[in-house]
């Protein structure tokens, strides 16, 4: 990711070339609404530092493609959430507390009022921004330089694009007109539950997808950014009629299991997952060592994301520990990301093995509703790295239920291939459902229990296991005993004890 507006334009070609040399095939380009809007409300896409077309030409010249983020809050750590003061301080656009006060969130060193994603006024303003930004991108969309457009409120902390527990904006109240398509019975069920508990309804990012599509971006190129809870993804996708979610990978704090679980879950629910991985930190998040970030990234990639963005590609205003420094020169640890990219290329592509037990969307929505309504300060706790299942209130969702849902969903068989290199969309979204009912007998077994997480992939007629170790020590994987795996015998030991967090591909062992 390169925030081009924070770099001198003379450095753009150097930054793009440096990232291409490290092995990246696309540049992630966030457009910050607040930066592009002039005092009179007009938008500027042509001043030297804001000339997005010129930057995209630099991207294209280097033989790369672009992933463009339109937000409205496109990236962590932009002042005032990246939203113009005109909108941020418009009471009609602000999220409200129960007593109709504005909701302020930390925007260190101060505070910023939170917009209401349910506010009609906010939606109109945001949609106008997206329309104008898409127009500025038109040539690059036409010639294919822009591979994907990501919309949504992406930063993992504070603004959660789900049942927002603090928003009592009149447009979010239960007596307001329903904002989701009535034909989504599951959505309605979830909303009924939310409404019953809180008295107000919620909205997801579908309206942003619609705004981008109405502005001329083909749906297949649109992805929805989700914040925090992966359970948001099917709703966001369903409402927006798109198939790809952009998910910020959990921090190392989530642990191997948490990272794996969330990515697998998002993969199963969202069909295609674009992962956002950290290469550094916005300064107001707890710092992460490069080694730990790389370990988290390796686990997340192994869990099956189709493509990913390394955030903080080039140090701009407010980013710490990026791959390139402020002069677009390569930092020492960038070579380790380069090695990670090369390693990712070695992972098996193909068809996820396992079976399909379609979990009814109603069930997903029910789980979503129960995780979305709780009295914990989710944003604040997510900021220090808690996973959603750790934050749910007692009696809302049990760990067993979560794991059960996960197990059923991640066992689905999903065609999978890398994106960007071959097309704009990560997955074609076709869901195989032939092997229902036997999923539990078909999952590989790990010994000792809980020592590793395993994903099976059929690649070019061969099978492989991707193993992420959760603890240190030797790991034994037992093939399933029924179904397509039934002809396999014996157990597979990893060739050596795996350090905790290490990922290994056991190739062809089951072929």
């Amino acid at each position: 990711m390169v925030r081009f507006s924070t770099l001198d334009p003379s450095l753009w070609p150097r930054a793009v070339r440096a990232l291409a040399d490290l092995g990246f095939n696309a540049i992630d380009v966030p457009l910050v609404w607040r930066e592009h809007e002039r005092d009179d409300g007009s938008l500027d896409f042509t001043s030297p530092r804001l000339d997005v077309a010129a930057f995209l030409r630099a991207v294209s010249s280097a033989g790369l493609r672009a992933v463009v983020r339109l937000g409205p809050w496109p990236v962590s750590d932009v002042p005032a959430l990246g939203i113009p003061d005109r909108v941020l301080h418009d009471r009609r656009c602000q999220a409200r507390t129960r007593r109709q006060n504005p909701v302020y969130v930390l925007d260190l060193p101060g505070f910023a009022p939170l917009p209401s994603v349910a506010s009609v006024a906010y939606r109109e303003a945001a949609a106008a921004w997206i329309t104008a930004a898409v127009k500025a991108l038109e040539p690059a969309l036409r010639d294919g330089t822009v591979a994907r457009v990501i919309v949504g409120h992406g930063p993992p902390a504070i603004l959660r694009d789900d049942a927002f527990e603090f928003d009592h904006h009149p447009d979010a109240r239960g007596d307001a007109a329903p904002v989701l398509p009535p034909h989504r019975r599951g959505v309605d069920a979830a909303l009924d539950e939310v409404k019953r508990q809180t008295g107000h309804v919620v909205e997801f990012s579908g309206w942003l997808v619609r705004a981008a599509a109405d502005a001329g971006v083909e749906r297949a190129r649109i992805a929805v950014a989700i914040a925090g809870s992966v359970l948001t993804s099917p709703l966001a996708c369903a409402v927006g009629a798109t198939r790809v979610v952009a998910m910020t990978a959990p921090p190392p704090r989530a642990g191997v299991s948490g990272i794996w679980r969330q990515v697998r879950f998002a993969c199963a629910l969202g069909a295609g997952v674009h992962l956002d991985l950290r290469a550094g930190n916005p300064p107001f998040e707890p710092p992460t060592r490069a080694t730990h970030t790389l370990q988290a990234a390796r686990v997340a990639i192994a869990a099956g994301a189709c493509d990913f963005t390394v955030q903080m590609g080039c140090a701009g205003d407010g980013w710490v520990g990026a791959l390139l420094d402020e002069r677009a020169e390569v930092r020492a640890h960038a070579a380790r990301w380069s090695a990670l990219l090369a390693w990712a290329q070695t992972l098996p592509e193909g068809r996820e093995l396992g079976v399909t037990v379609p979990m009814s969307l109603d069930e997903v929505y029910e789980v979503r509703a129960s995780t979305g309504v709780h009295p914990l300060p989710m944003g604040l706790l997510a900021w220090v790295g808690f996973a959603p299942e750790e934050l749910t209130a007692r009696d809302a969702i049990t760990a067993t239920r979560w794991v059960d849902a996960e197990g059923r969903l991640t066992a689905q068989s999903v065609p999978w291939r890398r994106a960007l290199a071959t097309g704009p969309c990560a997955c074609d979204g076709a869901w195989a459902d032939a092997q229902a009912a036997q999923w539990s007998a078909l999952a590989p077994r790990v010994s000792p229990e809980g020592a590793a997480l395993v994903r099976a992939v059929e690649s070019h007629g061969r099978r492989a296991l991707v193993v992420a170790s959760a603890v240190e020590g030797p790991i034994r994987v037992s093939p399933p005993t029924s179904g397509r795996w039934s002809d396999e015998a014996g157990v597979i030991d990893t060739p050596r004890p795996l350090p905790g967090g290490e990922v290994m591909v056991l190739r062809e062992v089951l072929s």
Partner: protein
Amino acid sequence: MSGRAWQLAGFDARSWHRLVTLVAPGFASHAPAARERGARVEGGLLFVLYDEGEVVRAIHSLRGPVDLPMWRSPADLAACADACGSHFAVAAAVGAIEELYERVGGRLHRGDDVASGLLLALGAARELIDEGELHVIPSLARGVPLPPPEVLRRAWDHLLPDGHAGVIVLFEGVELETAVVLRRRGAGLDRVLGPEVLRRMVGRLDGDLRRDPRAVREAVERELGPMAFGVFAPTTTLRELLMSRESGAWAGALARREVVLDPMPPWAAVAAGAGALHAVGRRSRDVLSTLDALGVFGPFSKRAREVGELLGSVDVRAMLGFDPLDVVGTILRGSANAAHPDDDDHEP
């Protein structure tokens, strides 16, 4: 209300991690696999949400969800934290966090500056503590008074006057471990620069506490403006000083030149002698004379004597009603891994 308009540059992941964990060791990075081993990790923060005295949810920042069998009421929070191996804990009644948002949202105004906003939020939190809806361990909130915004602004003016730069440079042996260069512009900071930028400005720094401060000062004053203060020390020394309970530890370290303050502003001279000030009551002039005799002030001794005249207006502790270093020390002493928050020597 958003006060951010600064350039932040020159930190890689390591130097940033080392800087942050110096004062907030609880934020030290852990490997993903450490989460699975969480039950063996000491420290962390316990957060308890309760309703009518009963625990709704208890989570620990290193261990995830935890059971608290000894919980009977919020009065048991300290015992629960202790059982979890944690020195830090927060308990909130259901609705307390929402009420905090209510109060902040109802009182904050668009034109409020950063100081006013922060004090307002802290004040609202304190109200909830006083009302028994929020419980914090350690109970810093009760011991630390909240000064009015104008006093906070005056203290800020003394610490880092407008247009001036402040520098902290930390070494481990001959290696520059981390550094931060701050420059104030108006009410806030406009530059937050790390070791990469400092190296570009100064050239090589090798932990020579006689040479490096001079070189840094010349470079910073050339490029950014007059320097208000500069702190140069080995990281371990500074960490020990921050954690120390010993009165006069700073004065002693300065006298032995284990830490160099260059330039040493009046408030730093007073802060360095704070322990001694306590010992001698109001006889601050004597303390400063003693520091001067120890050679703490070096070539700035004349200025140090002038400081005595100004003491009433530069003693940050007296101004704020509490010693910010005491607050940092309390946090550090309560952190399980404060002494060795970062073990990344072998990180490639």
